[in-house]
């Protein structure tokens, strides 16, 4: 880590604080939005959302096909039975940028979301759940017979 990077992080933080103050961004939105989506590896993306070494949990269930024919449209549902679920984040390890989507779960909303994602190739799909301030994860491999990211 060098000085210019530290400085950049510092001023970046200041800018975020200003945006929070102005009510443009809500805390929690900002981290993922800032640059986590541009991270190229799973580890970097996890770090960018603040989820370092999340504990594996059986209380997170990923519902998705074991084999998806079309990588452009892979249905994925995540259900978290962890009490105090605050957010659910989906990552596809072997996509060019692993972070796919992050959902904020306010109190009163059930800890389950379904969506459809693109997958470039067969990969592990990670569901990261933040509950009571801590991150937990589950993963599932989905085999792709036709990629969804190429041209």
């Amino acid at each position, binding site marked *: 880590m060098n000085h210019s990077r530290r400085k950049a992080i510092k001023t970046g933080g200041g800018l975020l604080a200003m945006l929070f103050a102005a009510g443009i961004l*809500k805390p929690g*939105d900002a981290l*993922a*939005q800032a640059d986590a*989506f541009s991270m190229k590896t799973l580890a970097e993306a996890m770090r960018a959302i603040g989820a370092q070494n999340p504990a594996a949990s059986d209380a997170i269930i990923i519902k998705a096909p074991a084999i998806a024919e079309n990588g*452009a*449209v*892979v*249905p994925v*549902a995540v259900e978290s039975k962890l009490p105090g679920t605050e957010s659910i984040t989906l990552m*596809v390890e072997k*996509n*060019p*940028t692993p*972070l*796919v*989507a*992050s*959902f*904020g*779960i*306010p109190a*009163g*909303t*059930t800890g*389950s*979301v*379904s*969506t*459809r*994602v*693109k*997958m470039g190739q067969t990969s592990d799909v990670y569901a990261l759940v933040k509950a009571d301030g801590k991150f937990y994860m589950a993963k599932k491999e989905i085999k792709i017979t036709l990629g*969804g*990211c*190429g*041209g």
Partner: protein
Amino acid sequence: MADPMRIRATARDGAVNVKVLMSHEMETGQRKDSSGKLIPAHYIRSVSATHQGKTVLTAQWGPAVSKNPYLEFDFKGGQKGEKVVVTWEDNKGDKRTDEGVIN
């Protein structure tokens, strides 16, 4: 302006199940057109859903969410006849808001 979302909100067992189908290209920025030029990324970046003024879901998306995104979630406490309002904004600043009546 993008096409309207399709929103279906169904009350059952004290909770409301919300299904949303949005109309959007969700271009990744990694594909090339026939002349070999990169097609610029164009995708929905943020989504929020509210019920009676209270936020019931927020989402931040990258370009790896599929074209014409689908989203399903459940929240507690909605009544039939009330509305669920969903808004998205894409990386070019386009926005769209639609609402669905709970039934």
